[in-house]
């Protein structure tokens, strides 16, 4: 059965290497769980960025170079000199014992930075630490974790530190957005929380025990307008549930594949002459077969968002989740306008929403006239 699914996914992807996941893409999976298009593309490992370019909607997507540089500089500052600043924070905020200063760098295993070697080394070191052997260490910098996504092993390259205290690991996430007067940007905290949840999940898998890793993560951010770091505990239990749900769903990709017409493929390969195997029209048609659920949030997390937005233009769903929920049963913007203006007659199930739309329309006209 598994082989069958694999071969079907391979057919969707075509004869190219599957695109690898990272914590960001796994976190993005949870932002729109209802989207079959994203589910299929991610499970099959389709290069969505290249696909978006081929169908004429190249995504202006990804982190800005300035943000990456700033993030790296802040991380290096916090970790400098044997994590001196981080230790001060942990001692103040979490009352870490003064004897707990062990630091193990797992970014490189003996000058070898291949992922297999690094993962093996991280695994061995972390398991030894969990088993409580002496000189187990406290901080583990850049462990390379592994996670199963849709049947494929994915290496996670986190900039996190796993930190063991009183036998329990905590994930430390260092982010460069500022916490001003105790408040941080809600969206950024949420995305940091979901990314950390990915690491918590991966670390639990590695240690083979859910109790070994705390569901509270430690978020380290710059304080106010300075470069001074501050630490906050964030509970990621909710994000973990969402993540597990989405990962299970990816594993049940069969149901989604069953709904597709036979022979749908998003093959991005080129033939010997360097010409694409599939034309743009064929790719657009294939994408059209896989149902998408566009919402404006997609623009922040999915490479195909611009294509889906264009496809969904005129649909009420494209106006956002709240509009879609309010206007259940009214598919397009044109219908909604027609119902409001009275040029369309509502069906029985549209009666209630039509009354609301007409009231809204009347209030709008009156207020515009008054102004």
């Amino acid at each position, binding site marked *: 059965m598994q082989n069958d699914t694999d071969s079907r996914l391979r057919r969707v992807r075509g004869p190219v290497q599957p695109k690898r996941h990272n914590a960001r893409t796994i976190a993005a999976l949870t932002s729109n769980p209802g989207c079959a298009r994203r589910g299929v593309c991610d499970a099959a490992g389709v290069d969505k960025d290249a696909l978006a370019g081929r169908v004429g909607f190249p995504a202006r997507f990804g982190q800005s170079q300035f943000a990456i540089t700033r993030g790296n500089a802040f991380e*290096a500052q916090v970790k*400098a*000199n*044997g*994590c*001196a*600043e981080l*230790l*001060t924070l942990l*001692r103040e905020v979490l009352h870490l014992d*003064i*004897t707990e*200063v*062990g*630091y*193990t*760098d797992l*970014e*490189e*295993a*003996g*000058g*070898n930075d*291949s992922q*297999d*070697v690094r993962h*093996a*080394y991280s695994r*061995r070191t972390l398991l030894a630490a969990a088993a409580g052997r002496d*000189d187990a*260490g*406290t901080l583990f910098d850049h462990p390379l974790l592994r996670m199963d996504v849709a049947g494929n092993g994915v290496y996670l390259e986190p900039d996190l530190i796993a930190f063991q205290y009183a036998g329990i690991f905590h994930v430390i996430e260092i982010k460069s957005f500022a916490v001003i007067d105790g408040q941080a940007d809600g969206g950024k905290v949420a995305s940091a929380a979901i990314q950390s949840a990915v690491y918590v999940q991966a670390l639990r898998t590695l240690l083979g025990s859910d109790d070994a890793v705390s569901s509270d993560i430690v978020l380290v951010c710059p304080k106010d307008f300075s470069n001074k770091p501050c630490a906050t505990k964030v509970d990621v239990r909710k994000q973990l549930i969402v993540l597990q749900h989405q990962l299970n769903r990816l594993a049940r990709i069969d149901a989604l594949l069953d709904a597709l017409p036979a022979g749908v493929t998003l093959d991005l390969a080129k033939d010997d002459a360097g010409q694409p195997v599939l034309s743009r029209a064929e790719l657009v048609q294939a994408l059209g077969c896989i149902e998408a659920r566009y919402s404006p949030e997609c623009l922040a997390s999915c490479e195909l968002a611009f294509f889906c937005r264009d496809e969904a233009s005129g649909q009420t769903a494209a106006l956002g989740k709240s509009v879609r929920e309010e206007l259940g049963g009214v598919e397009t913007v044109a219908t909604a306008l027609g119902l409001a203006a009275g040029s369309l007659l509502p069906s029985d199930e549209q009666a209630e929403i039509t009354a609301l739309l007409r009231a809204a329309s009347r209030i709008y006209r009156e207020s515009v006239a008054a102004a």
Partner: protein
Amino acid sequence: MSGVTEAAEALERRIDELRTAVRQAVSAGDTERARALRAELRRVENEWDLALDDIAEQQAEKAAAPARPSAPLLPLREQVHQALVLLGAPAAPKLIIAVHEAFQVGEMVPARLTSLRRDEERSFRSAPNSRPYYLCPALTHDLLAPARGLLAVSTWPMERRIVGPLSPRVDFLTSAIRLAEHVGRLPNPSPAALRLLWRFAANIPDAAAGVDGMTPSSVATAARAELDIHTDADRSHREAAAKRAKRQLDDVQQLFGNVLRDVGAAAQ
């Protein structure tokens, strides 16, 4: 007046004469004579340029002679060595640069530090032990591999060049003590030196309440107090690893580390 300057002045007079002659030839419509005079003019102008270079050279020699003893620019490796000796423990390039800038004149370029380690290894391999010291990486205690981004000095005992799990903190505290002692010895420590010391003091419990109230002796005392807690455990790790290193590694590896090449060795 030197002969070089006289020659240049004679050339200037000749250039003036030639220019006048060229103008007269052109106004008279004698193109052939004008062309010949112009060629001559260009030749003399080139000579004049060369004469100027000679003068510049003479001036430079004059200026350099008294200045030489006052600006002895050390090679990069010497500067790094000095910073490491001051810190007394393996350190990251960033810290080495900070120390250099706090206590020495001149700029240290981070990019050149990166290639330094490779150059040192190449030099050692081609002519072992021909220099009084080499700059080498610190070694990790478990794999005896080069530790990422930590430089050490080859003349240090092996156990000081090894980093165990507690060593980053121990080295931080050791460096803090040595820095504090050094700053304490200076009659007028520079603001850069005090700023560097504060960066250490801020992350040591009870070292100083603020930048203004910080004294080098209180920083050293606080660092010693924390160091006492870690030092025994750290030393036992380091000594065990050092023994292993001396037994297992050849001369080059003892300095530059053992690099893992195959998967099997790491997975054991």
